[in-house]
């Protein structure tokens, strides 16, 4: 038996232990090597598949690197103006209350320009899930300082390191929204190891389940990397994230009611 024939025999339906969900499309992703978006997209796609809610899910993509998220998940999508995704999701969820509506937003989109929209959607307790990908930098525009950029972190617009006395302090969005009575479930996750992805998927499922039960807003922050913006290799980025991001943005559930 040649190696090829042997391989073909192994690749058969009864031997499948894992396969890519069909909710994740085959389009080539535009994300940089080491970027966390791809892993998070896959985790969301898998949960949508596992819950059997593909036909009832509507995503709202932001402005930023994940503006093109609609190219990767096989669901209906709305592409929002910068920061406004929670406003779109508010109307979509209220006008189609049987749907699962989520926003997918980065730190520039959610914590800076869209700060009002996210705070008020959380305060109203809209029946939506918010995925907040925090990599402490603007990726799409070329690595500028974000509200979540750490003190001393070098970016294109804080070339000598973020000076909190003139630029403010890194914003802890999860802690802020957890204070609002409208939020039901607030958690901070990551996606750098298989274990972390499993925990993330549990949180995603809980978020969508809360939507089904009309239980108010679920806010899922995912601390991620931006190798291009941070100017590090993917491996270095994960180390830097663990050593610098996790102490300031501690992982874990902040609120679960």
């Amino acid at each position, binding site marked *: 038996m040649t190696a090829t024939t042997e391989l073909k025999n192994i690749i058969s339906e009864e031997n499948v232990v894992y396969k890519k969900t069909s909710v994740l499309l085959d389009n080539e992703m535009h994300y940089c090597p080491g970027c966390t978006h791809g892993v998070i997209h896959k985790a969301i796609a898998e949960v949508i598949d596992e819950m059997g809610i*593909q*036909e*009832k*899910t*509507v995503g*709202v993509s932001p402005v930023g690197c994940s*503006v*093109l998220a*609609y190219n990767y998940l*096989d*669901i*209906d*999508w*709305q*592409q*929002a*103006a910068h920061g*406004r995704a929670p*406003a*779109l*999701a*508010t*109307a*979509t969820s*209220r*006008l*189609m209350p049987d*749907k699962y509506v989520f926003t997918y937003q980065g730190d520039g989109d959610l914590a800076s320009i869209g700060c*009002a*929209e996210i*705070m*008020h959607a959380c305060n109203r307790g809209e029946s939506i899930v918010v995925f907040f990908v925090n990599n402490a930098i603007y990726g799409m525009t070329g690595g500028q300082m974000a509200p979540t950029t750490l003190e001393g972190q070098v970016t294109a617009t804080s070339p000598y390191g973020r000076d909190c006395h003139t630029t403010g302090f890194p914003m802890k969005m999860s802690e802020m929204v957890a204070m609002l009575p409208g939020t039901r479930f607030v958690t901070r996750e990551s996606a750098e190891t298989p274990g972390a992805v499993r925990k993330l998927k549990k949180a995603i499922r809980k978020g969508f389940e809360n939507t089904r039960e009309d239980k108010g807003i679920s806010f899922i922050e995912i601390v991620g990397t931006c190798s291009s913006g941070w100017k590090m290799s993917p491996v270095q980025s994960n180390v830097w994230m663990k050593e610098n991001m996790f102490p300031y943005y501690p992982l874990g559930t902040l609120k679960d009611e």
Partner: protein
Amino acid sequence: MGDIRLMKGNEVIAEAAIRCGCDGYFGYPITPQSEIMETLMIRRPELETGMVVVQAESEVAAINMVYGGASCGKKVMTSSSSPGISLKAEGITYLAGAELPALIVNIVRGGPGLGTIQPAQSDYFQAVKGGGHGDYKLIVLAPASVQEMNDFVDLGFELSHKYLNPAMILSDGVIGQMMEKVELSEFKPRWTEEEIIAKSGTWATTGKTADRERNISTSLDLDSAKQEVFNHKLQAKYRAMEENEVRFEKIDCDDADYLFVAYGSSARICQKAIELAREKGIKVGLLRPITLFPYPTKAIQEMLGQVKGILSVEMSAGQMVEDVRLAVNGKVPVEHYGRYGGIIPTPDEVVEALEQNFLGE
């Protein structure tokens, strides 16, 4: 006989929205149009028709809620007044760029800046020439009575869904605040989910079913060649509107030697000015644009062999007059008369302006 009432223009916008099967209203308070949302909150249409009414945290959020609702194929609207419309400009260009239907009501007040809460018509450029960025057009309807405030809500939704383009009712504080007799429209049911899928299934984000590709509501295309093709498509749509949707009214034009061109409140003032002028032996008529885009250019051109001068009357420093001049192209003198900053001209002033400009007095 229908349901005849004495109502404020703003209240009628709210009532007409409920009656025409509107699915959602998203607004933010601003004078002189707050009665629209107040009336909706009092009427509680969620109990009657299921219409959703949300007081948003800002005009920016409200227009983006409209974008979300429009993406679902629903009949959705917002209302505001001048400074608020400036804030909505971002969302309006996104609606146009994503080819989404929606109704936006502007009860215009004097500007610039925070300006005044009194009526004005100084947002013509913003409504007709742009407001937001990019080559886009709104369908712009200019009511001149409380009755037309009623009628144009349904018409605005109809045209915006026909062309998949946002429509604007450009009114002002006079029409919004005054009470007049109005015959309200009959109730129409809201569209069912099945009707929306049948009508808008090729684009509405109602949930991707196995029998179709995913629908994406976006105005983004990073490929310039495709973006130009898309812009050609938009321009073709605007040309079709110019071909099919021009609306205007002519009053006392048959024997007119002079012509007023005016819309909204100014058209009402011009009607009285016509009476006063004719008592003095000056034969003047009125051409009232009802659609400001598409503009009644041909209708103005058809008057050129007949009239000796045209006075564009607008509560602004002279905005619409530019479109009158483009139509006339130098063939007869065109002048502007306006009061602004919240001041409403009297019919006497308008007649005086006509005499000063064209009769050498």
